[in-house]
Structure formats: structure tokens, C-alpha cells
């Protein structure tokens, strides 16, 4: 059995980011992959002339659910029950895990197969299953790479995005034989061959599995229909071959009607993998006699979602359909990768969702996440359900700052007070710029300031600053009379205006 690693005890974002930035292989892998997917997404989105209208509809549909949440959940429960499914409710991760472990134990199995699911990642179900002596086999290729590599996921859609083909080959050669069918010794690093190795390794597990565990992309309240959107067919294997199926579903996965899927099935594949449609989508409604699992469970989980719902600004994050478009366009994610966020939800959506699910003001790691952004807004521009991530980030920054009030002013407040004094008067700014320009002692060889003494180290620990120029703009303006006296440049190209006061 494999012992699953968790995100518990991860350092705050600046620490994780610094480590990630020093790993040039990681940066190359992530930059290459996100550039590929950004281009693909842009191409297939441009093919639809109503993409903006689809986004608006999707946001409205999700808001409609949140506005009538109790009714829709009750309707979903009734539809599922009528279709032969057993519905369970879980307040938190521990309760959800207890339910799933209980069902698996009831069937006396020592292994289950799993479809990739963010909800089960979030509740760390694999750890709970392992503690109960039940092996949880991840069957998504990327999840398999992460699991075999004793690694952590770094992307919600492509969890092994930080690994390149030769690293994957090494992991397969080293680890597959320890837990099942070994990879051939002459395995190359061609992605098609690597996928073939995964096919052979997992097939025996699919064919013998009695119990499968999935998440769901959508739950249709009207009909009780669950939807799983996937690429490889491992989802279809898990959803149809075993006798028992347990689906762990966040309460926010609800859409009101079957017809609403016409919106999401156009948005999700294009936003996620940049395809017009993903290879496979499965929908099922409870038990289908003579076809697939004859015992179907659905575990509806809260695990912090009602906390998010109670925040009027933050609740829009519950619209999220886990497509990952926001992380693929994020300049911060592109450079640090997912591990730096120390959470199953990395990137821009993780920077807002994780603090709201966990609560701010509790630990330094969580509180660092709303600051893991340059607020450039690229995430909001691509979000298929119009989550205004920068707005929520700023809102959460306020909450983090507020939660730390009441003692000595922190370095951030001190710095801001200093800044308002400096920018308040032109002469003070000029004096300070002169000072900065002269402080060559702190400027590194590449023209970067790597580290300043405390309390300014709070800033430079997380960022390298470009060194200030030797001469400030204000000094240059005064010396050259607004550029007129600059040597080697024709005077007529310059338009003397008013200099700084």
C-alpha cells in the first residue's frame, strides 16, 4: 500500500514560492505546459461567438442555486433517492471519510479504485482509507504519477503538471512493480508509451475492483443525475465495472435542471483542457438495472462550503466548476507551480477558496494565500463562471489584516504609514530616492536587491526588487531641463513642459 502525502504542515506561500523559483526544471515544466494550454483554450473559445453570453448564463445558474440552496438540495436528495441511490450528508471531512470507510468496510474490501476527484483530495479520503487498511488506487494518469511518485498534486486538472516525460518514465519504472503490474524495462519516455504502461498497470485493478469512489462535476437537482467529465476512460471504468459506487459531491455542485448542462458542457471542456469537448462524459441517475453498479451512494459534503456561503463577497467562489483556467493564465502560478500554495486548490481560485474553507486568522500558511497574487486580473478574464477573483482577494486581505489587529502595528502598517509620509511631499520623495540610489551596498550583481534588513526584509524575503537607477527621474529632469540638455539627442524631439514642482 502507498502512504499518501498531505499538505499538512506546508510553509506559507513566500517560503514555498522561493523554493519553487529556485527549481529551474519545475519552472520549465510549468511554463511549457501552461503556455500550451493557454493557446489551446484561446483558440477554441474564439470559435464561439456567444462565449460571453454562456459565461453570464453559467454565473446566473450558479447564483440561482445559491439563492435557493435548501430547496435545490432537498430536490436533489429526493430525486436521487427515487432513482435508487442512498444519500448521505457530511458536515466535515472527518464525517465524510467515516461514511465512505464504513461503506467500504461493509463490503469487506481491502482496495477501492478511484476516479480523480477534488472533493476526495480535499477531505484526504485516501489517508482515512489507508488507516482503515483499504488501499485506494488512483486511476487518472496524472494522479497515478503523483501517487506512485510519493508526491503532491500541483494542479487541479493535471496534478502532475510539474513532472516532465522523463521524470514520469523514471517513476513508472521504479514504482509500478511494487504495487501491481510492472512497467516494461525498455519503456521509453514517449507520452503514448507511458500512457500504454498505465493502461496495462491499471486494467487488472479495474477488472477485479468491487468498490469505486468518484466525485462529480455536476448534480442535477431536477433528475438526480450525476455527471463526470473526463478524458482517459478511467472514470468510465470506475463508474461502470464495480458493484458499488460511492460519489463524494460538494453541495455546490448542484445545477437546477438537465437543460442547464447545455451551458456548462460548452464552457467546461474549452476552459479546462482547451478542447471543444472532452473525450468522455458519463451521466447516471441512481441505479440502472442490469447496467453498472447496483449499489449507488452519494455523500453530500459541506466541509466549509456554508462558511463560504455566509460571506457576501466571497460566496461567488462557490460557482467554481474546477476547470483550472485561472491557474493556467496566472503569472504567479506559472512561475511557482502549485505546491507553493500548500493546498489542494492552488492558483488564483485556491488563493480565495482555501482561506474561506479553512478560515482566516488561524494559521500563517492560509493567511499568506490572499497575498499570492499580483491582482493582474487575468483569472477573472478567463473564468467561465465570472468569479471576480481579484475582488475576493482584496476582501480576504482585509480580513487577514483585521484578524491581526489589536497589538503593535505590524511591519506592513508601518511601511504604509511611511509611504504616505514619503509620497505626501515631493522633496521627501526626492531625498529618499537619492538615498536609495546611493545604497549600492545592498544591490546584487544582477542589479537586483535580494535582501534588505528588518523590517523591510518582510518585503524582500518574498520578492527580489529591481535595483533603483543611479539617478532618479526627478534628478534627471532637473539636470537636463526636461531632457533639453541631454547630450547626443536632437533638441526638436523634446517638448519642454512643466517640470516637477
Amino acid at each position, binding site marked *: 500500500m502507498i502512504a499518501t502525502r498531505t499538505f499538512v504542515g506546508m510553509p506559507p506561500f513566500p517560503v514555498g514560492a522561493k523554493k519553487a523559483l529556485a527549481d529551474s526544471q519545475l519552472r520549465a*515544466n510549468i511554463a511549457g*505546459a501552461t503556455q500550451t494550454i493557454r493557446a489551446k483554450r484561446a483558440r477554441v473559445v474564439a470559435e464561439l*461567438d*456567444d462565449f460571453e*453570453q*454562456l459565461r453570464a*448564463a453559467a454565473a*446566473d445558474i450558479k*447564483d*440561482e442555486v*445559491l*439563492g*435557493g440552496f*435548501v430547496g435545490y*438540495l432537498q430536490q436533489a436528495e429526493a430525486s436521487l433517492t427515487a*432513482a435508487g441511490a442512498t444519500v448521505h*450528508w*457530511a*458536515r466535515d471531512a472527518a464525517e465524510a471519510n467515516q461514511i465512505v470507510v464504513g461503506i467500504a468496510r461493509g463490503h469487506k474490501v481491502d482496495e477501492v479504485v478511484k476516479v480523480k476527484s477534488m472533493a476526495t483530495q480535499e477531505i484526504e479520503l485516501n489517508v482515512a482509507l489507508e488507516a482503515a487498511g483499504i488501499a485506494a488506487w488512483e486511476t487518472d494518469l*496524472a494522479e497515478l504519477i503523483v501517487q506512485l511518485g510519493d508526491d503532491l498534486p500541483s494542479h487541479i486538472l*493535471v496534478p*502532475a*503538471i510539474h513532472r*516532465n516525460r522523463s521524470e514520469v518514465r523514471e517513476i513508472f519504472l521504479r514504482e509500478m512493480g511494487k504495487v501491481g503490474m510492472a512497467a516494461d524495462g525498455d519503456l521509453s519516455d514517449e*507520452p*503514448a508509451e507511458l*500512457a*500504454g504502461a498505465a*493502461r496495462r498497470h491499471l486494467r487488472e485493478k479495474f477488472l477485479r475492483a468491487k468498490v469505486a469512489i468518484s466525485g462529480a462535476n455536476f448534480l*442535477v437537482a431536477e*433528475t438526480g443525475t450525476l455527471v463526470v467529465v473526463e*478524458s*482517459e*476512460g*478511467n472514470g*468510465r*471504468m470506475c463508474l*461502470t465495472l464495480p458493484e458499488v459506487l460511492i460519489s463524494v459531491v460538494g*453541495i455546490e455542485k448542484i445545477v437546477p435542471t*438537465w*437543460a442547464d448542462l*447545455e451551458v456548462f*458542457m*460548452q464552457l467546461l471542456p474549452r476552459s479546462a*483542457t482547451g*478542447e*471543444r*469537448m472532452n*473525450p*468522455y*462524459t*458519463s*451521466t447516471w441517475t441512481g441505479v*440502472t438495472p*442490469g*447496467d453498472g453498479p447496483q449499489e449507488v451512494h452519494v455523500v453530500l459534503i*459541506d466541509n466549509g462550503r*456554508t462558511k463560504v*456561503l*455566509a460571506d457576501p463577497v466571497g460566496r461567488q467562489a462557490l460557482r467554481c466548476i474546477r476547470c483550472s483556467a485561472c491557474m493556467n493564465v496566472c503569472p504567479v502560478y506559472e512561475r511557482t507551480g502549485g505546491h507553493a500554495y500548500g493546498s489542494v486548490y492552488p492558483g488564483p481560485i485556491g488563493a480565495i477558496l482555501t482561506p474561506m474553507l479553512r478560515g482566516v486568522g488561524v494559521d500563517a500558511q492560509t493567511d499568506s494565500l490572499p497575498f499570492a497574487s499580483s491582482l493582474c486580473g487575468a483569472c477573472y478574464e478567463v473564468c467561465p463562471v465570472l468569479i471576480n477573483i481579484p475582488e475576493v482577494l482584496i476582501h480576504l486581505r482585509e480580513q487577514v489584516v483585521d484578524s491581526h489587529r489589536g497589538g503593535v502595528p505590524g511591519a506592513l502598517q508601518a511601511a504604509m504609514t511611511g509611504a504616505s509620509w514619503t509620497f505626501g511631499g515631493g522633496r521627501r520623495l526626492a531625498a529618499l530616492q537619492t538615498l536609495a540610489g546611493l545604497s549600492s551596498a545592498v544591490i546584487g550583481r544582477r542589479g537586483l536587491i535580494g535582501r534588505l534588513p528588518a523590517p523591510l526584509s518582510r518585503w524582500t524575503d518574498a520578492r527580489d526588487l529591481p535595483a533603483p537607477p543611479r539617478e532618479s527621474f526627478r534628478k534627471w529632469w532637473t539636470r537636463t531641463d526636461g531632457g533639453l540638455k541631454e547630450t547626443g539627442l536632437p533638441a526638436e524631439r523634446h517638448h519642454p513642459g512643466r517640470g516637477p514642482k
Partner: protein
Amino acid sequence: MSAREQILARIRSAQVPAPATGIRRDYSHVREHDDRLALFVARVQDYKATVIRTPPDGVAAAVAKCLVDARQVVIPPGFDPSWVPEGLDIVGDQPPLSASELDGVDAVLTCAMVGIAETGTIVLDHTAGMGRRTLTLVPDMHVCVLTADQVVGDVPEAVARLSASVKSGRPLTWISGGSATVDIELSRVEGVHGPRTLRVVLVEPSTT
């Protein structure tokens, strides 16, 4: 208090207002294409799947061509016998084949419920001629016969046509090309767990 009651109580106390305006639905409900069938064919081929277009009297021959490299073929109950070529080694699914038995079969031959031109998708609702869901999953090749009138412009029209199936409890499988993954360096690779080969026969009305 039960978990259910407590979660519902937490939601009530969040006091989320219902959206003031209704759901904006001014997206295209019908996508018009100059040549719907040609687009469908091109989009299916984009996924590296094969498409053969044929008049009704050529279906069996087209199917034979698709199955040329398959020895044993499973055909679900209810599949139109006039579409089945002579001389196939056919396995039925009555009584249901075990997963391991299916794993030993080379190909599966089915019909479908809906085709989507814009996305190159075929949808099965697993009624007559389509079989249980595992039939089109475990064998390494899937040959699917679709008629021109089943091909719609885009997803909203497909969702509308599939509504009755879903509401009567039928499961659906949406298939866009062969099994694929983008998990290694985000480049699409065909062939993981589902059928690695997808061949579609599109039946068009005779022009005469």
C-alpha cells in the same frame, strides 16, 4: 441535530438573497452551420477518429471496412441486423459477458442516439443497439453507426434531444474521439483506458 439538518440550517442562516434578475439565456440555442454533416465529419476526424459516409444500402459494407482488423466483435441486442456484414465472428451480450470476457473481445459495434457537429461528439443512451455501458468501454475498438438525422448543430440541441432519456433514468455516455490524455506535458495522447480506436459510419439519405 443530524448532519443534514445542520447543513441546511447553516445555509438558511447565511441568508443568501435570490438573484434579482432571472438567468440570462441569450446564448445560441441552435447553432446554424452551412454544412452540418461536413462539420461533424471534420470535427470527429480532428480527434483522429475515422469517419465513413455512406448511403443506407452501403452500411454493412462500411461496417465491414471498419472491422477489417478485428477478429471477434460484440454486438448488443437491438442492433439493426441489416447493418451487420456477413462473416463476422459475433459475440452476443445475452447472458451478460463478464468484464474479463469483454477484455478478450477485439471490437464493439453499436448505434448511437445523437451526434453533435460543433464538437464532434456522439452520445449513447444505452438503449437498444447500444448495450450496457461497459460494452463500449472495455474492447479496444468501437465502431458506431449514426444516421444523418441524428446529427445536431451544437450542445443545446443535443441536451434537448437527450432530455427524455435522462428523465426516464437512462445513463449517457458522450464520446469525443478515442480515449485520450493530456496528463504528460499537456500534449494530447490517444489511447488510455477506453477504446483506442473509434470509427464512425455516417448514414446519409440517398440523393436519388
